[in-house]
């Protein structure tokens, strides 16, 4: 029963939320979609900040809402990070962190030192919120949400209100959170970058409905419902840095069944890193030739689908355990005699390291 089952129906003037969703209670689940798609409303319904009249919500088998039950927000064991830090301006950073701690049972209390260290806010404890930068405030807000030792962490676009520099400042903390804490996270975002970097599970929403949901890698590799995460369709590969070539300023990232070369970004050997490969950067060939393209992998065609333009096709290729999607003209697909199960050479023009 380690999952969330959410079934909500909510009608407001000009907006309707209607979904029935089962989400895993592990890792980071991204709720992705354009603004107005209902992702924040869904998160607020799960937190109990919004009450869908016909709703049902169970978390790890516990009923939080159905026709007869309603657990108010303050009795739900969750943490919530809002888009704006929303720190209590009358309290110091320390006071903000302790606000929730004092309200949970002593047995449930966890040491804050780790969270404070994780988010790098130990120098700020005595300050009032108006003396903090935007990035610092948001880090404190995240630590404050963690302080109540939540069974589920809800984050509503925690980076959206920050400029690019501040985003870059916080993202590493979120990644550490992901890697080091075992708290399941529901993460609302409309930023492809954040989703690609942080999510394990993806829920794509549009106008109050769920378009697709499933594990991130598989969902992004779907051909029946191509998901534009950003400017193009693309897949994600979980890799480990395997080697660094100082002479050519390159690094090799390994994944089960293959490896790719990318520009050296300074990530040390042995570190895990996600890479994204866009469909337009992948081409297919039936024999090896000499080319400027360094990354050539051997794979098996896993699926063929239509792209938006009638002359284009999307071809999914399995390389070891990784999935890649290539975009090519239907004529090219025909001349290569592509079909599911056929062995092909995959040429990858560009690899984006997500960090």
């Amino acid at each position, binding site marked *: 029963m380690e999952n969330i089952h959410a079934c909500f129906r909510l009608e407001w003037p000009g907006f309707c939320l209607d979904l029935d969703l089962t989400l895993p209670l592990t890792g980071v689940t991204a709720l992705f979609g354009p603004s107005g798609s209902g992702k924040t409303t869904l998160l607020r319904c799960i937190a109990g900040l919004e009450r869908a009249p016909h709703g049902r919500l169970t978390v790890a088998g516990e009923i939080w809402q159905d026709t007869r039950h309603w657990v108010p927000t*303050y009795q739900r064991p969750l943490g919530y990070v809002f888009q704006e830090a929303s720190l209590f301006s009358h309290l110091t950073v320390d006071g903000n962190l302790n606000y929730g701690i004092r309200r949970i049972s002593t047995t449930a209390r966890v040491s804050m030192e780790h969270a404070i260290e994780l988010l790098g806010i130990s120098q700020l404890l005595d300050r009032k919120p108006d003396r903090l930068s935007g990035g610092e405030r948001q880090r404190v807000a995240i630590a404050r949400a963690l302080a109540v030792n939540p069974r589920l962490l809800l984050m509503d676009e925690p980076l959206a209100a920050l400029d690019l520099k501040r985003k870059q400042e916080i993202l590493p903390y979120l990644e550490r959170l992901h890697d080091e804490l075992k708290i399941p996270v529901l993460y609302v975002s409309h930023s492809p970058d954040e989703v690609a970097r942080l999510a394990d599970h993806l829920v794509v929403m549009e106008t109050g409905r769920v378009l697709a949901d499933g594990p991130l890698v598989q969902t992004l590799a779907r051909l029946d419902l191509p998901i534009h995460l950003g400017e193009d369709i693309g897949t994600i590969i979980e890799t480990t840095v395997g080697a660094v070539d100082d002479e050519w300023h390159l690094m090799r990232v390994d994944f089960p069944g293959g490896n790719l070369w990318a520009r050296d970004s300074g990530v040390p050997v042995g570190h895990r890193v996600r890479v994204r490969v866009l469909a337009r950067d992948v081409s297919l060939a039936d024999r090896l030739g000499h080319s400027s393209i360094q990354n050539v992998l051997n794979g098996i065609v896993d699926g063929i689908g239509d792209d938006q333009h009638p002359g284009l096709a999307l071809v999914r290729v399995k390389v070891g355990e990784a999935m890649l999607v290539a975009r090519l003209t239907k004529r090219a697909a025909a001349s290569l005699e592509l079909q599911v199960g056929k062995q092909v050479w995959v040429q990858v023009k560009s690899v984006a390291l997500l960090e």
Partner: protein
Amino acid sequence: MPLSDSDLLAIWLSLRLAGTVTLVLLLVGTPIAWWLARTRGWWKGPIGAVVALPLVLPPSVLGFYLLVAMGPSGPIGRLTQSLGLGLLPFTFWGLVVASVIYSLPFMVQPLQTAFEAIGDRPLEVAATLRASPLDAFFTVAVPLALPGFLTASILTFTHTVGEFGVVLMIGGNLAGITRVASVLIYDHVEALEYTEAHRLAALMLIFSFLVLLAVYAWRPNPKKGS
């Protein structure tokens, strides 16, 4: 210019009345202001209008109705008699009740504005940090609305000190009980004791000015805070 004993008694009574009314209104006005700031129901309009009525009603209207209502056959009068409290006109507590009604908007409106300025967000945050609504009210809403509480209390206090018409109509002019400073000034004028009237009136003027000066000078910077 020394003040006479009766002047001092009246000033002390004014301050005691204003202090009592401020305390009572903090207790009575806060929930009303909170409700008005938070509710979206259609009752908000009518209740808000009733609360604001004393702002526009002449004190004579209030005084007249209060005297009738508190009298032996009025609803308040019957209630207080059945509770064994006797009748309220010509008593200190009668003035308190009248002043609470008369000064109600001066407490409720600044508080309502302060509560509305807080918005929903801090209370939602408090709820996600395990604070029950009542808990969140005392630990988040009240501290954040503290400047509003201060302004409301000062305005209520000053307005009660400056009250005249209602007190005149239901007070009965009893020294130490209902003869407050503003009424005593009137008595001095009526008795052609202009020197005494001047003394007390000037004191009231300076007092009111200083209090308002404090309120305006202490305005917190609205740009601050997150």
